[in-house]
């Protein structure tokens, strides 16, 4: 009888096994890849241009140097980005985007023109960034120090956010959140983040942006209000990157981007706000 149970248990072990395989897959000629983001903050505008390469080619990225890159805005902006190094094209002066205005990127490379445009979204500054130690035995949160964010989203429009959280200048998490179900949960708009213990005692559930931090850590949160298209692009890109060989994987497909003429990558115009905190 005991053997039978072992046999049953053995049969139940069907954890998927995974291995790296050598396969030959079709290949296409290189395509232009665009990576760039401009914001409401006064900064140098940068766009990086590279080429795609065969999937199993483990060489360095092929950077592009010979392209004409311009950005025009409906606010009258018209700038030429000049090549610096490793595919990077940079503006001569620091520039900033204005809410509601649209910015178009144009790239002429080997006789082909690639374009892309986005509008700057409205957003508000972050109100509070707070660190809280939560004792053990809480049902929803394991013991540790948590970082909570508080802010307000623009209720006039549906808002889409990307939050980048850095711990001691190392990027720890990238979170996407929107207000489809009423509020942006990471912004904890309805809670008092200076009294997390009180909120939890009331049965509320504030949502932390980071967990497992130590005293004297410097935490920086960057809030990007992005377009719906870029938001969806990042979600789809993340789903494609998160493949695990299970039935939950999405069908293989390129995320819809905003580069014309078959270009890969994305050119984003985002509203950026940031806040820093040293954990006490």
């Amino acid at each position: 009888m005991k053997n039978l149970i072992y046999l049953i248990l053995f049969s139940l072990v069907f954890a998927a096994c995974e291995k790296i395989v050598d396969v030959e897959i079709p290949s296409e000629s290189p395509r232009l890849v665009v990576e760039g983001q401009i914001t409401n903050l006064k900064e140098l505008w940068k766009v990086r241009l590279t080429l795609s390469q065969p999937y199993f080619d483990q060489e360095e990225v092929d950077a592009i140097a010979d392209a004409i890159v311009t950005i025009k805005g409906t606010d009258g902006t018209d700038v030429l980005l000049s090549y610096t190094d490793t595919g990077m094209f940079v503006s001569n002066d620091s520039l900033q985007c204005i809410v509601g205005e649209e910015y178009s990127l144009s790239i002429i490379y080997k006789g082909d023109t690639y374009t892309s445009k986005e509008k700057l979204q409205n957003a508000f500054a972050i109100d509070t960034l707070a660190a809280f130690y939560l004792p053990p035995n809480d049902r929803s949160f394991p013991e540790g120090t948590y970082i909570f964010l508080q802010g307000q989203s623009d209720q006039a429009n549906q808002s889409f956010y990307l939050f980048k959280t850095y711990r001691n200048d190392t990027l720890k998490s990238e979170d996407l959140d929107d207000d489809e179900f009423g509020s942006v949960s990471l912004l904890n708009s309805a809670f008092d983040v200076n009294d997390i213990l009180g909120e939890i005692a009331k049965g509320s559930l504030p949502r932390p942006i980071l967990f497992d931090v130590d005293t004297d850590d410097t935490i920086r949160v960057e809030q990007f209000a992005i377009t719906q298209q870029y938001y969806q692009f990042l979600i789809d890109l993340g789903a494609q990157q998160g493949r695990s060989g299970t039935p939950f994987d999405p069908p293989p497909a390129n995320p819809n981007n905003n580069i014309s003429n078959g270009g890969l990558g994305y050119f984003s115009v985002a509203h950026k706000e940031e806040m820093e905190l040293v954990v006490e």
Partner: protein
Amino acid sequence: MRNLFQLILLLVSSSVIAQSFTISGRIKDAANGETLLGATVLVTDGGGGVTNEYGFYSVTLPRGTYQVTYKYLGYTDEVKTIVLDDNKTINIELGTTANVIGTAVISAKALEKKVENKKISVVKMETAKIKEIPVIFGEVDILKTITLLPGIQSAGEGNSGFNVRGGSQDQNLILLDEATVYNASHLLGFFSVFNGDAVKDLEVYKGGIPAKYGGRLSSIVDIKMRDGNSKRFAAIGGIGTISSRLTLEGPIVKDKSSFMVAGRRSYADVFLPFAPDETIQNSKLYFYDLNLKANYDLSEKDRLYVSGYFGRDVLGLSELFGINWGNATATLRWNHIVNEKMFVNTSLVYSDFNYGVDINFAENASFGLDQAINDIYIKSDWTNFISQKSKLNFGGQVIYHRFNPGLFAPNNEESAAIFQEVQIEKRKAIETGWYVGHEFKHSNRLNMYYGLRVSSFSNMGGTEYNYTKNPETNEPIAELTTSDSFASGELYNTYAGLEPRASISYNLTTTMALKGSYNRTFQYIQQATNTASAFPTDQWFSVNKNIKPQKADQVAVGLFKNFDIGLETSAEVYYKWMDNQIDYRNNANLAFNDRLDGELLSGKGWAYGAEFYVAKTEGMSSGFVSYTWAKTMREIEGISGGNPYVANFDRRHNLSVVFTQKFSKRLLATASFVFSSGAPLTTPVSKYYFNDQWNSNYDEVRNNYRIPAYHRADIGVTLKSKEKPNKKFKSNWNFSVYNVYNRENPYALYFRDIRDTDLEKFPTATIGNTAGFQTTLFKIIPAITWNFEF
């Protein structure tokens, strides 16, 4: 002129002077009272009939004295001398052949396996046969086993879905005692929902679908539950690796009525409390199902049946997260013999499939997600046994569908303060089907069937309908600007279709026949499936302004030949044209989406193939070889640049070999082998660096590649207990090994960059490089099952 006069005289005399009478009745199994379907009634000077799905037969003959032989595979013939001077009701009980090993084994006689009795594009499998074929974890699975037959392809390992002649999974209509089973999967597809002990008979129509059936494009899987023993109380059951089963049956009133209750429950979760991890200890993972059936003879002419199915899967991760889903069906049937030539069955059917998700993060973050499809229908099927040569079927059905595409609701007041309830507009619809079909035996050589089905579908008002896709440009409408309101009960977006059906059979010799069939089918509801497996979360949705009914035309031709040595062979070719086939935009979001139409694209499809089958059903060695060559294509604007592409479930070569050897009365072994071409896949054609990591740039050509082929061999051994006279208790042990040579079949092939988390598994890999990964689901798996009956 004189000849003509004689001819007229002859015609008049034969129709007026000769008086005809009808012999009718039911044929049952003498041992347990189960009605026998497809039993033959042979009359001395040729001719005869076959019992219908309720065991009823009707044969009309001129006045006279006849020898009538009642036959059924594996049963002793019953011969009756009948003096036919009036209409006669003759009910027959057939006993099993004495020398057969056990009651379940059916040994056929070559004579009865007549080539003309086989229908083109229809496959049948007896439960007894299915139980002999080894399956994963030893869990008898009728849906997995039928994928060994030609033209029926498995949707993949760990998936109980199947594809019939280039049709998608939702194009199969699975009927259990006439009730639609919307999701036939347990444990996300590892097992199917049918308990082998409760099933009497299974028939799959891949083509040549009679006008009686409709509603799905590709196939009809007609599963009939057993009636229950009307002679004595009996039990069958088993203890298996995954689940245990118990079926109880017996007479309510001897020879008049009987019942059957069959239950099954898995018990993987019984071991969970022994797990070291607390989360696993508090987890739930099980399924159960229950089949119930009872029947009662109201009178000689009336019989009432009640049958039901209830099954559920429960999956829970501690108290935080739970998902459960299941089907419930109920069928109430009334068989009525109007007169000796007219048989009618009227059914009232209920079918429901629903799933629910419960999430319980905190007191104020507790909510659920529910989705359901629910049908109530009434149908009536009439058969008029006009003469030995001619049989007329007609009838109709009306289905009332209700769809709940999704309800997101807080579970308590605290949560309601934070989360808004979201209900995706519920939908209602009426689907009807009306048919007439005529079976005609022109001569001993030529048989034919022709019929017509008229189907219709209307959405029903009471809800608002939003156009989420622009019907002209085919683009999704981001802002819901256009919407129509319909009054409660108002019908809108009505579609109707004519579905001609025909089949013909010509006997070239007594052992060889040429057969052909044509059918048109319409489908008005479909399932949004974007992953390889059919998940319970895949919602059913109906046609509307944007989504047109699917339509298919299929022709098939086949040659059937039986050999004296007990071999049955057949070869069939088919071609199928399909319109309004649905596929999804890249990155489509199908879950809880109130703008589902906007994610759909539609176009045409076509499929063709050849199927070969050789079977030996008698003797100590038996088995079959089945091979299918098939091609399935789709062409949809917006996918693959509008060019034709191979469908996701296209598998070019499919081979299965099953061999059973009886060593003695007690020992039996079965070995099987399956091979199928790899599933199509879309691979990257290059990679690009973005967001500090490598990303795949996928080919615009959909399914540009094939993963390696799938093949596997299984073996099973059944050892029966010693048979003792006067002892009802019998048992057997079944040992099986799945994937004997431990083939690592690819379950999925995918591409990504290597991350630091991969180093534990792949120490030699380089972080930042890109690689191809393959997952395998089931390697070698032994299983053991103990079955009993008394």
